């Protein structure tokens, strides 16, 4: 009789501590219910929605904003597939991810009458392949890929504007900085070898892999965001980079130049989209209208590496005396735009990338 009670009590003690632990772990999700009734949850990239702008929005409208971050489109897509978008009211996916989300029916159609900023948007960025009628997405910012280089390494002959500069050993004077994302690097290689990024079969992927392995001997670093620093310190003489990342250093250092390959380059457009299960669209529309206000767009342009998808962009370029090559990059014909979309499974890209990195 006594022994039974002892084990019963001991089990009860352990159970008590387990409950305490459970409470400790799940405390945050309980506290969310105590928050202000008017809250929106935004999932975004780091560095494109400034906390100061958020605070101003909260002050003006009384709506509380929770920001959470993600670092890759695959992460966003994976999280969304798992939770069906519950818990978030606004997300910022890139072009090809919007297509995937629309196909999986995870986005809510937009009510354009509630959005006051349509005329501000650059018409070239509307009606793109992923959302032809822009029913689900609004372009927020965009970048153009290109090659930054240090002209001191090229002497009198300036390099030609094509992808040879990063893939062909003969054109490379020194080390280069390559993109650190699997999908981007492989599709760039495909564009260089086959002049198109669609219909890549196994044989073609194998050739791209060999190209990347060959390129690795000349790669100084795989990075995207540090390319400006590496160009300045001459760690690399050529770098695959994006326009918002280099425009400031082009102004300061006149020996650094930027070119866009003539045969075509990559463009990334990041869009606002509302998950299907969100019930707070009115609050979200208020936020979108707020963030597209010219003064906020200007603030983001000044403080962050951010090129807005509005017509203001070229005005801002003029005002900040942005280098001609950057302006030209954003004016290239839409026919030369390639996107990072592909039918190939992400797993295949990652396997190739691991092999490249393991050598």
């Amino acid at each position: 009789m006594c022994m039974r009670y002892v084990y019963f009590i001991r089990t009860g003690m352990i159970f008590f501590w387990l409950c305490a632990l459970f409470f400790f772990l799940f405390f945050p999700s309980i506290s969310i219910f105590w928050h202000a009734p008017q809250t929106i949850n935004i999932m975004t990239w780091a560095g494109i929605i400034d906390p100061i702008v958020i605070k101003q929005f909260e002050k003006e409208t009384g709506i509380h904003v929770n920001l959470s971050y993600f670092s890759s489109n695959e992460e966003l897509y994976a999280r969304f597939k798992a939770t069906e978008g519950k818990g978030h009211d606004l997300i910022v996916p890139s072009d090809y991810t919007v297509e995937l989300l629309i196909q999986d029916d995870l986005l809510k159609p937009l009510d354009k009458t509630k959005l006051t900023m349509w005329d501000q948007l650059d018409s070239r960025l509307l009606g793109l392949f992923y959302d032809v009628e822009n029913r689900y997405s609004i372009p927020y910012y965009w970048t153009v890929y290109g090659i930054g280089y240090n002209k001191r390494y090229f002497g009198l002959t300036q390099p030609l504007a094509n992808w040879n500069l990063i893939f062909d050993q003969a054109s490379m004077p020194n080390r280069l900085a390559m993109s650190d994302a699997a999908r981007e690097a492989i599709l760039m290689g495909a564009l260089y070898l086959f002049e198109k990024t669609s219909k890549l079969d196994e044989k073609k992927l194998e050739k791209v892999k060999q190209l990347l392995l060959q390129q690795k001997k000349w790669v100084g670093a795989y990075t995207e965001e540090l390319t400006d620093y590496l160009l300045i310190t001459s760690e690399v003489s050529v770098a695959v980079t994006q326009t918002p990342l280099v425009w400031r250093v082009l102004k300061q250092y006149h020996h650094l130049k930027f070119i866009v390959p003539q045969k075509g380059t990559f463009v990334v457009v990041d869009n606002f989209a509302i998950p299907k299960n969100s019930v707070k669209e009115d609050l979200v529309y208020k936020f979108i209208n707020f963030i597209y206000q010219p003064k906020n767009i200007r603030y983001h342009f000044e403080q962050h590496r951010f090129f807005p998808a509005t017509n203001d962009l070229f005005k801002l370029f003029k005002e900040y005396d942005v280098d001609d090559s950057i302006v030209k990059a954003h004016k290239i014909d839409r026919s030369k735009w390639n996107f990072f979309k592909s039918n190939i499974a992400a797993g295949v890209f990652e396997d190739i990338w691991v092999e490249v990195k393991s050598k």
Partner: protein
Amino acid sequence: MVKEYLGRYWLIFFVAAVYLFLYIPIAVLITFSFNSFLYPFQWVSFSTKWYWELWHSSEIWEVTQNSIIVAVSAVILSLLLGLSFVFYSARSRLRFVAPFFYANLAIPEIVLAVGLLSFFNFFSVPLGFTTLIAGHTIIGLGYSIPILQSSFAEIDYSIIESSLDLGATIHQTFFLIIIPMMAPAIIACSLLVFTLSLDDFIIAFFCTGETAQTLSLYILSTIRTGITPTINALSSCMLLLSSLLVVIFCSFGSRVRVL
């Protein structure tokens, strides 16, 4: 003559060289935090503007606050759990479980981090401060339980016996006798866990889901996106803080068998 000199004092030269090696990067770091130029690789002139910017950056203050909250919580939890385990298991068979806590330190931290990530994802635990504190406490327990147990074992049992004989209850004995006698170990342990929690980034990298930013994560994301001297200034301040903690530790730690 020189050879003889070298032969006798080679060890001192060697030690000096190693210490120089240890401090060159730190010296460079601090020097460039006073550089007036935006990019820290080129010395232009002396300026304290990065420290001014650091002081006025609300983001860094918020991030530091988060880190300190997590570190203090990890310390409190490690100490509470460790002390209660060490004290209450002293006379029972449970004290043989104590060596298993060494395993917390025997595996690479990345294994613990991904384990915690998978565990939290499976049970849909919201990632954030609490998960981070949980991870840091596990590492803290790996240090605190061995240290506290060895310190507790060194206490002369006759003192406890005499205290009980003189009429104190077991809890009075605990608070008035045992804890003061273990004070150096407790302080050394808390400093150790505090520093570990502040400096840790592997567990933070995997287990916060990027909603809670700690100091290490902030430095990580800044280094990844752009190198500015503000980070040099921040690192110099953190060095100063570490120096303070080391001084406190050394004055107490000498009385404690830490390793």
